[in-house]
């Protein structure tokens, strides 16, 4: 296009430059002229209109004239110098026509070029549907606070409803009437168990290492570095192993469940289950919660072992303990009941992660953004509830003196 214009320019230049300059300048910018004659406001558009070019100041004047001069007729017309135009001109005209219509000014557009007139008619053909524009939400702090407080009873009800459905599904499983597919359970157990082994090993060896270092700083001062074995052993077995597994699994598996079930919700797959009379809780949630309930404790045993290995590495290489010394100290200083308490923590964490992930997935909205929100909520809620549950179980153990 530019090339062609350049060619034309060159051709014209050969014809004599004084002759061409004036009209070329005119055609590169959009032009508007307003003429007021009695009760008629005539708006002439001309020049060349393209998106991105600033509207001429006269465009504003036209709109003001319509506002203040109170004409009864708005006549739209094109001046002969109207060259190229695109929808930016259309937008200007539509704005004027709407303004005129709101003030009950009669609009005459017969003088516009035919294409422009047709597009204008097309744009104005379907009036905005009354009530279809959304009311802006009251976004003030108090309003949103009130809204979130008012939603608490409903969300409590939803969570309890979900847990109740899960408990009923579990009861049906116990009496052998469940429609849960066994292969779904195996699949879920494999995914959340076996595939998590490497990352659990890595995080817990490092965590055992950290525990040992932190303990050694104090214990070295009075030559009691052998107690590092007890500190790491009890710390890992009793609570830290389970918490570490819980946090890793919340990020790894809880998020995956929320995203998976949420996407199934988006694709109407959950509805498809419902129309066949399959319970989504039994089909999708129960196998996953069961898998986590079984695999998180098993992973915790593995994590405990890895943590002790981490402590062992520090004890043997940095604290001058012999391997046999460290192992013996661990065995004599760490009673097995700590391991059992750790498993109790782990079972609870498994249920929390499964319930949070699946609940967020099941109640996910029908959009990609909703899946993202569900995933975030699943991870955040899992981790928060893991910490709350840790506190509660620790207090209970304290009261029971175990």
């Amino acid at each position: 296009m530019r090339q062609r214009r350049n060619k034309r320019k060159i051709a014209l230049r050969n014809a004599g430059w004084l002759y061409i300059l004036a009209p070329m300048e005119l055609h590169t910018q959009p032009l508007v002229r307003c003429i007021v004659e009695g009760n008629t406001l005539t708006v002439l558009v001309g020049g060349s209109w393209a998106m991105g070019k600033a509207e001429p100041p006269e465009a504003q004047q036209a709109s003001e004239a319509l506002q203040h001069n109170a004409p009864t007729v708005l006549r739209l017309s094109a001046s002969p110098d109207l060259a190229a135009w695109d929808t930016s001109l259309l937008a200007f005209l539509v704005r004027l026509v709407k303004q005129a219509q709101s003030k009950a000014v009669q609009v005459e557009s017969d003088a516009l070029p035919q294409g422009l007139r047709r597009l204008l008619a097309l744009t104005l053909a379907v009036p905005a549907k009354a009530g279809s524009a959304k009311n802006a939400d009251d976004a003030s702090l108090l309003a949103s606070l009130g809204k979130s407080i008012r939603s608490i009873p409903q969300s409590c009800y939803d969570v309890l409803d979900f847990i109740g459905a899960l408990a009923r599904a579990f009861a049906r499983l116990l009496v052998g009437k469940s429609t849960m597919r066994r292969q779904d359970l195996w699949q879920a157990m494999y995914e959340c168990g076996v595939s998590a082994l490497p990352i659990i090993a890595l995080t817990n060896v490092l965590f055992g290492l950290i525990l040992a270092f932190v303990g050694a700083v104090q214990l070295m001062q009075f030559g009691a570095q052998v107690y590092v074995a007890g500190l790491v052993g009890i710390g890992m077995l009793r609570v830290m192993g389970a918490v570490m597994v819980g946090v890793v699994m919340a990020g790894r598996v809880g998020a995956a469940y929320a995203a998976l079930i949420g996407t199934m919700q988006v694709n109407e797959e959950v509805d498809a289950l419902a129309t066949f009379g399959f319970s989504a809780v039994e089909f999708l949630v129960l196998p996953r919660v069961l898998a986590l309930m079984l695999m998180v404790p098993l992973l915790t045993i593995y994590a405990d072992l890895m943590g002790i290995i981490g402590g062992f590495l520090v004890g043997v290489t940095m604290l001058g303990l012999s391997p046999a010394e460290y192992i013996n100290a661990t065995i004599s200083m760490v009673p097995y009941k700590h391991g059992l308490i750790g498993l109790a923590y782990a079972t609870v964490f498994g249920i929390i992660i499964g319930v949070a992930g699946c609940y967020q997935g099941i109640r996910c909205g029908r959009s990609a953004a909703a899946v993202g929100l569900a995933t975030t909520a699943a991870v955040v809620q899992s981790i928060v509830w893991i910490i709350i549950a840790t506190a509660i179980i620790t207090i209970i153990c304290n009261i029971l003196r175990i």
Partner: protein
Amino acid sequence: MSQPCISLSGLSVAYGSFVLMRDISMQVNKQDIFIIMGGSGCGKSTLLRVLMGLKEPALGTVHYGDVNFWASPPEQRQAVMRRAGVLFQSGALWSSMTLAENVGLPLQQYTSLSAQQIREQASLKLAMAGLAGFEDYYPSEISGGMRKRAGLARALALDPEIVFLDEPSAGLDPLSARLLDDLILELRDTLSTTFVIVTHELASIFAIGNNSIFLDAESRTALAHGNPRALLEAADTKPLVRRFLLRGEEK
């Protein structure tokens, strides 16, 4: 006149305080190919969701035979729905299962067929929908039109009495859409299946529909009932319905 299969009376559907449609009454007879039509946003799919038991109406009743559907306990609703098959707009195949498993799952849960028989049934249903040989593909590995046909195969898995189809031919090429229409007519004639179809594919509407309801987004209610071809001929058809059926071209 054959006996009514589904009848709705005085049905209103709302989302919160927003009433999507009010006072809908209609009757689907056995062996009908019943078309739910109307412009976009008029609540066709929502009406289908009410019929499928996924969305509770605000007012009014839905009767399946003698059963008052929404007033009965969930177990009974499930029993009713077990006689129905559903094809969702996007197929809604379970993405973690192969096509054969998708079709076979309802059979596995609700019949005492052996694994081999289930597989055979699944292959048969897939072949009926024109997907022979695709048993072991996952939904993500086939095209959108094929997913739709697989969804139809799954809807037919339990030889349902009623099949709900949500825009079955949208996204299909004209030939596939024609094959689908033929399949629907064939099933109606051979297995006496009743079809309730949401569509705005005019060719399909005239080719297979023998009963219909026209929903209007503006007045939020039904503007017309009856055979689509008869509606086109009838003198008392509302102009809006006629314009819809003629694609906006006045005769």
